[in-house]
């Protein structure tokens, strides 16, 4: 049995660990093809890298001996140009062909850059996606830099946090009138924005660049932004071209079943390039989240190696810190809203049909996993003391029966 994994991120590592949990025979080789030259690393950590909280050595997602221990061959710095599903081979950009029995497609996503006028006149412009991007950005930014970040989503704002204190000024622009619109609703978005503005970040919202001209951007609103460094964090697109060509079904992302099988013989897919069924909203969508990527990969790996595993309780969730403010979110924002406020924490819950559907917590993230458990396991709220849970997440308010379904609590 020959396994091939395209990609080297969390989904790929999950796939390796999934395969090896079933198939421990290292003669059944795993080949990992990665466009980056690095050992597998934790991509979301690049903003922490900018902050100096970590370094490339510590950012390694798995120990140095990971590939060797798991019988993997890493083909680094190569991309796959084609998958020949009929002959079960992949073609690399250097012309090499590699055969497979089972393939996992974990190519992730790439930055999406709209065709701005005059973008080619900008000298120092960076995407913020990979360790190489972060290293290049870190090498350019100085105490005197004025940084202009296009995009007030997770990537743009984590980049702003990473640069906070390292640059003279940071301006963030987004077409949306709200920041972090993918994970926050209006109220919380405004609260986070107020916090960041308070820290000195400037926002230009509901606005976008009409044209770049060297170190100046002319906004649609007429405002002119001067900058030394431009970061492009407008959005990402899943890397689906290669797999789409070989016959897999691709909507926004690659379509798979619960076993992460694409429908094309021997080919599985996992990670940010795929769509996942989000149980909190009942829709298939791209959940570009690292935990999700790992679990999809693990599921794919188990099934590739002949085991049987389903990935069927995906819930979007995020835990991010932005210059001292903790934000924890999960699920979908539909249904009735319940709020809890105290001095240092704001909690917003969404309930529908007697179930918790989602939450947004600004401040202390203490024990938020208990809320995620309620969403993920669809625990009926009338079986728990939800009033006290909202104020203070604790197991005892879950009631004995729900506690029992959590392994052996008592």
């Amino acid at each position, binding site marked *: 049995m020959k396994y091939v994994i395209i990609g080297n991120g*969390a989904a790929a590592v999950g796939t390796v660990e999934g395969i090896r949990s079933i198939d421990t025979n290292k003669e059944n080789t795993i080949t990992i093809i990665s466009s980056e030259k690095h050992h597998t690393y934790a991509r*979301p950590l690049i903003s922490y890298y900018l902050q100096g*909280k970590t370094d490339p050595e510590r950012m390694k997602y798995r120990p140095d001996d990971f590939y060797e221990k798991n019988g993997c061959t890493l083909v680094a710095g190569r991309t796959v140009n084609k998958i020949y599903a009929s002959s079960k081979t992949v073609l690399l950009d250097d012309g090499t062909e590699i055969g497979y029995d089972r393939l996992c497609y974990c190519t992730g996503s790439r930055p999406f850059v709209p065709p701005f006028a005059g973008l080619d006149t900008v000298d120092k412009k960076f995407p913020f996606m990979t360790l190489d991007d972060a290293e290049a950005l870190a090498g350019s930014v100085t105490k005197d830099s004025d940084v202009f970040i296009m995009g007030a989503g997770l990537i743009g704002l984590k980049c702003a946090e990473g640069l906070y204190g390292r640059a003279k000024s940071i301006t963030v622009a987004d077409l949306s009138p709200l920041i972090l619109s993918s994970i926050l609703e209006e109220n919380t978005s405004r609260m986070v924005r107020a916090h960041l503005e308070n820290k000195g970040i400037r926002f230009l919202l509901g606005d976008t660049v009409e044209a770049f001209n060297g170190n100046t951007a002319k906004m649609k609103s007429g405002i002119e932004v001067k900058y030394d460094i431009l970061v492009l964090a407008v959005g990402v697109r899943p890397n689906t071209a290669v797999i789409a060509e070989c016959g897999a079904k691709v909507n926004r992302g690659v379509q798979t079943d619960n076993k992460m099988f694409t429908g094309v013989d021997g080919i599985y897919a996992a990670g940010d390039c795929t769509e996942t069924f989000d149980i909190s909203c009942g829709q298939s969508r791209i959940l570009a989240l690292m935990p999700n990527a790992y679990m999809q990969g693990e599921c794919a790996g188990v099934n590739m190696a002949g085991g049987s595993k389903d990935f069927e309780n995906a819930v979007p*969730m995020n835990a991010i810190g932005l210059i001292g403010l903790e934000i*924890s979110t999960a699920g979908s924002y539909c249904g009735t809203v319940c709020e809890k406020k105290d001095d240092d924490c704001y909690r917003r819950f969404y309930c529908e049909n007697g179930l918790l559907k989602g939450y947004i917590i600004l401040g202390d993230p*203490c024990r*938020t996993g208990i809320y995620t458990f309620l969403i993920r396991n669809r625990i009926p709220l009338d079986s728990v003391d939800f009033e006290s849970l909202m104020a203070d997440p*604790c197991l005892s308010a879950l009631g004995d029966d729900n506690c029992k379904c959590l*392994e052996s*609590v008592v």
Partner: protein
Amino acid sequence: MKRIFINKQWCLGCHLCEFNCAFANSGKTSMVTALKDKQVRPRVRVEEHGKDTFAFSCRHCKDPICIKSCISGALHKDNGIVRIDYDKCVGCCTCITVCPYGAIARGDDGVMRKCELCVDNMDGTPYCVSNCPNGAIVFEERD
């Protein structure tokens, strides 16, 4: 593998486990110097709901979602014990968001802390177990 189990019926809600846990992980030789006038951050916590109390710490799950979700690769299994590489952890709190037991919390240094069965500071029994006055926390092998 030996794990910590709770005998709920014997928990007195005295919270001694929390203080002994914080002491055991303080690296100090006296509980007074370790905890006096300090913010106590135990890795075990006493759950209270009305008169019902029980102490709770990491279950060291067989299939731990915290490890799968860790974005930095800091959480890992070592001899069945879910452990944190403090050097790698950046304090992103993703593990807190997924742990259904609420068994992970942030330490003073911003990096996550959780029960590691006292493997670094004791030579056998976790401190919460050996210092429970009523046998409400036990350390044993179960199927």
